[in-house]
């Protein structure tokens, strides 16, 4: 059985899990369903030749799940099911339909050249003489071991060729954690009497 079928089945599972997560009445089941979708995604990553991503996705998913479960488990949900906002839902469905149709045209290549390359045939596989040459990744694969000394090409890209992006990534974690501290301060403003002290 080809990898396509397994990926397709896992994506179907993800789709169902995401639907349950969005539509479940109980917030805890919703959060657990999103965890299931995340773990299915990590298996998809593993099958598609991305073990780095699979590891990261699993551990990130675990931490996110712990955070979300602790968030919902002690808090009482008082959401009353309101009659649906028909206009909003309709607009979303309309926009979503347009997006899906556009994506379908962009993927299936109706309208001649310029479609997203078919699944399994990325630009990387082009020949150097094609109209669109294979791009930077071919160079990464061929030269990363020689140029950076790292056997793992993903790490070579992440921490050497494109290390500047990784600085941004580290800053994102840094600033979101500072933001967490800022949001969790018990008092945002001082009382009048405390204002004089810096």
């Amino acid at each position: 059985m080809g990898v396509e079928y397994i990926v397709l089945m896992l994506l179907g599972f993800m789709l169902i899990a995401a639907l349950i997560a969005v539509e479940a009445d109980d917030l805890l089941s919703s959060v657990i369903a999103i965890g299931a979708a995340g773990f299915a995604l990590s298996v998809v990553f593993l099958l598609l030749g991305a073990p780095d991503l699979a590891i990261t996705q699993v551990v990130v998913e675990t931490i996110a799940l712990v955070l979300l479960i602790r968030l919902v488990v002690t808090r009482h949900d008082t959401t009353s099911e309101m009659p649906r906002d028909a206009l909003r839902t309709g607009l979303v469905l309309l926009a979503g339909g347009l997006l899906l149709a556009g994506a379908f045209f962009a993927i299936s290549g109706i309208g001649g050249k310029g479609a997203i390359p078919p699944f399994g045939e990325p630009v990387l596989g082009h020949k150097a003489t094609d109209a669109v040459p294979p791009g930077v990744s071919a160079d990464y694969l061929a030269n990363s071991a020689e140029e950076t000394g790292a056997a793992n090409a993903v790490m070579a890209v992440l921490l050497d060729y494109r290390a500047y992006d990784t600085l941004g990534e580290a800053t994102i974690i840094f600033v979101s954690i500072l933001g967490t501290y800022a949001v969790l301060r018990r008092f945002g403003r001082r009382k009048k009497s405390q204002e004089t002290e810096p």
Partner: protein
Amino acid sequence: MGTAIYILAFAVLLIGLYAVVAKKNVIKIIVGLLVFDYAVNLLLVLVGYRSLGSEGWGKPPILAEGQTPAQLAATAVDPLPQAMVLTSIVIGLGLTALMVAMAIRIYERYGTFDTNQIRKLRG
């Protein structure tokens, strides 16, 4: 087959979008954003996958013992989208922590996750 995989990825993305716009609960909105994030990451990895036809699946872009870089370049999947997804996953984690903190404070201030009751601002 390939088209079906892409369309499924876009369908997951749409579910996330639907939850963000139409749901009236802070947790549901967070869940929708997570689904949205998954779908975009998935799309990036799909774009970089290379199948080798009859010779099997695309290999991870990691140089194995005794393999030459030329062999790797002929069989491995694209490493650049993977580096991008790694960044994107980390962004997702940071956002999740921030969203959870905000949800805790919103619950503390309003006593509910219902966005119909969280409406001090006029929009």
